[in-house]
């Protein structure tokens, strides 16, 4: 492999960077310590481009592009931070906070929540939208884990990790639009589903939607970093 065919050079936030041609703008930005907020993206899982927090501007185009799926191109000029992007990111976070029930003070994930962290990073101080507060079920049927749908942001990381890494495909999405829900099997209780009890979904869940029952009331950090490691080890085998 000769380096000259593979390498692209581009500019991200005024910084000249180089990248392999198969890399995404998000990969390259992270390598260069440029922070782009993400929620649905998780290293080790397929991309869905759904949360829209990673949208960036490209010089010369009025459109915005999700950095997580945007492949690098030679000479591309990417802007990851602007007034406009900040406003969009804040509004998307507001939409998430208002969609279900995200009261941090009484959440198992308080202090370990990606939604909370990103909201802080985007300097979100208040939500202008009315809270919808739907009354959604809490599934406690599983012996070890629980699903509180009121905290779910539908990032589908659980769906993807279960199907792509565990190979069980227990989780999926039901319904559409604002009524969408993640479900186990055909909307069976988690406890009586075909769940393999591996707990990967709990580890990748960015909020307090999926949690370990034994961690309620104590700190509940999650460890999604196992994914790239697992993928690497599998590749080597």
């Amino acid at each position, binding site marked *: 492999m000769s380096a000259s065919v593979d390498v692209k050079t581009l500019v991200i936030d005024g910084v000249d960077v180089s990248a392999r041609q198969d890399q995404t703008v998000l990969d390259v930005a992270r390598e260069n310590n440029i922070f782009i907020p993400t929620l649905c993206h998780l290293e080790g899982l397929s*991309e*869905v*481009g*759904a*949360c*829209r927090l990673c*949208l960036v501007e490209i010089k010369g185009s009025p459109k*915005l592009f*999700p950095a997580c*799926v945007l*492949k690098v191109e030679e000479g591309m000029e990417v802007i990851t931070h602007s007034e406009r992007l900040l*406003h*969009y990111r804040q*509004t*998307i976070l507001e*939409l*998430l906070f*208002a*969609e279900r029930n995200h009261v941090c003070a009484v959440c198992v994930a308080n202090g370990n929540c990606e939604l909370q962290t990103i909201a802080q990073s985007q300097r979100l101080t208040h939500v*202008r*939208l*009315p809270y*919808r507060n739907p009354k959604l079920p809490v599934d406690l049927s599983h012996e070890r884990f629980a699903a509180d749908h009121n905290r779910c*942001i*539908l990032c589908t990381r659980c769906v993807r990790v279960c199907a792509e890494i565990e190979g069980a495909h227990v989780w*999926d*999405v039901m*319904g*559409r*639009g*604002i*009524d*969408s829900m993640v479900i186990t099997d055909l909307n069976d209780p988690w406890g009586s589903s075909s769940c393999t009890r591996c707990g990967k979904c709990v580890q990748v869940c960015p909020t307090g939607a999926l949690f370990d029952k034994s961690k309620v009331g104590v700190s509940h950090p999650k460890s999604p970093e196992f994914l790239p490691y697992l993928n690497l080890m599998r590749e080597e085998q």
Partner: protein
Amino acid sequence: MNSEELQQIAEAVRLEHEKYDYEINVCMGAGCLAQHSDKFKDALAKEVESSGKRCHVRSAGCLGLCAAGPLALVDPIEVRYGHLRESDAKEVIASLGGKPVERLEMHLENYFQGQQHVVLENCGRIDPEKIEEYISRGGYEALLKALTEMDPQGVIDQIAKSGLRGRGGGGYPTGLKWGTVAKAVGSPKYVICNGDEGDPGAFMDRSVLEGDPQRVIEGMVIAAYAVGATKGYIYVRAEYPLAVSRFSASLREARRHGFLGANICGTPLLFDIEIRLGAGAFVCGEETALIASIEGKRGTPRTRPPYPAVSGLWNCPTLINNVETFANVAPILRNGAEWFAGMGTAHSKGTKVFALTGKITNTGLVEIPMGMPLREIIFSIGGGVPDGHKFKAVQTGGPSGGCLPEEHLDLNISYDALIGAGSMMGSGGMIVMDDTSCMVNVARFFVEFCMTESCGKCIPCRAGTAQMFGLLSKICNGEASHQDLDLLIDLCDVVKNTSLCGLGQTAPNPVLSTLRYFRDEYLEHIDHHRCPAGVCACNARTPKAELAEVTV
């Protein structure tokens, strides 16, 4: 099948027609059938038999003026009847040879003046389930010409030269898309026909599938030859059972005549078409969601690139076009690209079928050359607004489109002009509104549609449309403040610019266009808690009413 055989079939049909003095085409489209046109047809057939007249009664496709159904067209005297009942059959047959039945006759000079039928040229003139009748009107000549006289690139060049653009909403140049698929590496390649037609008030594609299905099949086979595809799918919504049954009957007929399958028309071309039913999700009309749905997955759009032309169905190069786009292909090859490019405006060629509905005298399907002013469609062809009401707005482009007011009626219909005015061509829905419509309520209706039809994958569309709906409801109820309006405008901007697919990206259009042209109606609701059209129930909240409540 070669051209002699085609001519033999056409000749046989002609000889058959010569046996009759009259032919009565009775519409068997879904609209007329719902009003029992089949019963009328049976009664007609019985009358013909007992009267001994040389008349042929044909089950035909849509005759256009759906609201006046059941409809019938008498050939060759070009008399049109409407609102037919079983009991009218006797009179209709008895009148043949004499004066038409005045009571039933429709006088529609204006309705047809200015229309130009390319896509609809056979609709209502042939029996959609008889391939011979399609052939007798030039059907499959274009396919034969393509296969025997042109190479695939030649076909693509003709389509490109014609200036045909996608009729499914986006208006992407069809020739360019075909060229991309032809060049894409990977096999097999697929051709998909998008017959999902989910826009409220739209029924153009349904009428073509019901009234002239062979035309769509011919277009798809020509496309397959041009791009090198071996397998085709047509995705039709399950709410169109008649279109599905006619199309599947037509597929069998096309196979029997060697237009589908192996060695099409005696050439090495191999191609067949399968029908897939949509389960009634609007978003499944979006091409990547449609492809996921055909693959048996949840119908949600994905980010593009890669575009389907490069990586579509089962990650193979896939050509996806709308029903009406395919329906234009055969006439282009038959009559030449120049002929097609001779109709329309600089960047919007040919004709467009619209489903004219709402507060309009002549409800139905119209096909007009691109470039026609909106005013002519609505007031001349459509006959204007009935019952002495005043025209207020015309909505085009379905939930993605916008509402245009009186002052834009001189706009010449084209993809770019409509976008410039804040609306869209869309797939061809055209809803006319009069002074009894509240524009805030109309915007609320479309936003509600987008909210319930959002797939739920991306946040701005899923939660943004729900919040927009809440704010619009608040305005309608006369409970909103100016801050609410500002918030609504802000959300429109966010949802438009950050949503993943076309559904979310265009969902704010009905709000933005009504705000642009009818802002005073929003303000009336907000400042005076009053709905000028008297549609919204906010009148109950006027300060006076509140006062009354207190005193009681």
